[in-house]
């Protein structure tokens, strides 16, 4: 009698245990891409915006490749803009011995002599503007249009958001640094430096 009772209760409790043992999952998706697809179907936007984080910056809106975003303006940042205040005469006339030497410290270290020299980007007749390879005028605020002539891949990445630095906020509207905010157009190469820290505890841990 005992064994039967025990067995009955044993089987019953086993079944109960089986039923309650399933893990509880909240809103199960098979993969993250499924989740993204499903949940962004009716994307209405969020209440978080980047305005408060970028309102102190002077930015302008551009649209490239169908994507609209903000970039910081450049003309107000350049110390000696407008260039024509000094470059009142054509360049050839300025290159005489007795005039003051300016920009003597800018050594062009960008590609090679076959590809780049000063007039590749600068318009000797109107120093307030830049010019493209096809002699079109390019505004200083939109200097990225020059870079994109050769560096189209990086440009596409930059427009999408995969290259370069986004300013302050992940929320729309996007504000991104332009090319010249990070890369000096005359010497775009970055020097190597030392790392910001060294962890001595890790060394101890691994002795």
């Amino acid at each position, binding site marked *: 009698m*005992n*064994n039967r*009772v*025990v067995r009955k*209760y*044993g089987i019953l409790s086993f079944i109960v245990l089986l039923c*309650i*043992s*399933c*893990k*509880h999952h909240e809103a199960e998706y098979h993969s993250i891409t499924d989740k993204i697809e499903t949940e962004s179907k009716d994307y209405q936007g969020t209440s978080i915006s980047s305005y408060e984080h970028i309102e102190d910056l002077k930015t302008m809106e551009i649209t490239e490749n169908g994507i609209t975003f903000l970039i910081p303006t450049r003309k107000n940042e350049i110390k000696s803009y407008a260039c024509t205040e000094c470059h009142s005469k054509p360049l050839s006339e300025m290159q005489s011995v007795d005039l003051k030497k300016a920009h003597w410290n800018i050594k062009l270290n960008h590609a090679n002599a076959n590809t780049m020299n000063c007039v590749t980007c600068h318009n000797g007749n109107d120093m307030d503007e830049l010019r493209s390879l096809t002699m079109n005028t390019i505004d200083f605020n939109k200097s990225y249009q020059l870079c994109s002539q050769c560096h189209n891949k990086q440009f596409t990445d930059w427009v999408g958001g995969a290259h370069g630095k986004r300013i302050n906020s992940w929320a729309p509207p996007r504000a991104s640094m332009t090319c010249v905010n990070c890369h000096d157009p005359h010497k775009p190469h970055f020097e190597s430096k030392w790392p910001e820290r060294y962890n001595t505890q890790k060394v101890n*841990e*691994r*002795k």
Partner: protein
Amino acid sequence: MRRLRVFGSLVKDSLDIITHGSKKYHLWMASLTLVMLVGMYCYSIQLEQGLSATGMTDRVSWGLYISNFTFLVGVAAAAVMLVMPTYVLKDIDFKQAVLIGEGIAVAALIMCLAFVIADMGGPSVLWHMIPGIGVFNFPNSMLTWDVLVLNGYLFLNITIPFYILFRHYQGKKSKSSVYVPGALLSVFWAVGIHLVTAFLYQGLQARPFWNNALLGPRFLASAFAAGPALIILVLAIIRTYTAFKIEDKTLKKIAMVVTVAAQINLIMLVSELFKEFYAPTHHSESAYYLFFGLDGKTALLPWIWTAISLNVLATVILTFHKLRNNFKVLFFACLILFVAIWIEKGFGLIIPGFIPGPYGKIAEYTPTGIEIGVTLGIWALGAFIFTILAKTAIKIETGAIRYNKK
């Protein structure tokens, strides 16, 4: 009301028993108390400093405490190896040893709980785990399963022998309709506790050393080898020092259990070694660290090779009838088997699970003095509790104390 009076008398009588004894007994208890006090002092240092007083780091975040916990759950589960033949197979030979086995289970479980509490970063907030008052992440977290089954097993192993002893104390026979279902339940429950503890490690996909199908069965096999080995040693001591009669054939039968379990344990070890070393993958790195060392880091090598050689030696000794039936050889074999499995299942399992870390970095682990102190303190606590329980139980079983209606 009457039961309460009997209970009160039982408590008084047992207090009487445990505070009187031979000089050796007092020496034993005094040294255990000393070790416990040392352990408590070390624990107080750990409470104040935080767990940085131990040797654990972010890379190896479980160390000596959890190793001992894992091993002792197995020892507790193995008490059932005496219960099962007695009540399921109705083998009377084991009956004498059952209470002792369950006493070991209780002591081992209390040690397990103590190790877990010692390992916690915030022992004062453990109430967060109580369902109802806190949050209990059942059934997702295997730790919650472990809490349930361990406490349930402790409850079973306290109430059933207590019932039997209570009845015997009054000179009455214990009703089999009461304790046999409990005994049967504890058989399955014991397998359950050790499987659940194994699943704690087995379910972690982040640790390939543990994430294999054989961990659970391996735990069971090594538990059923180490636990009864300890029981044999304890029974031998009880035979020598008390009036409790344990027949030779009981010891021989338990030795048989130990032998079979040790053999199965070795087979499983061979299977694991084959899997790790026949076609080594990136996941075999932990096994390489354990058995051969990695990048010059060889801290566990002497331990594991001692464990394996003792294990093999013990199994071989136990396999031969002639040697197994010679009690002196048997006790030696049981001792070395117990030590070997303690190493292999304790820190020979837990530490290599963390080395190398998730990004391949090796940070070795060495327990500090505080950790060792607390560990020894808890082992002393277990021995202390077991001695108390055993002494009382033996006195009741041999009829030395009986409830006298006043």
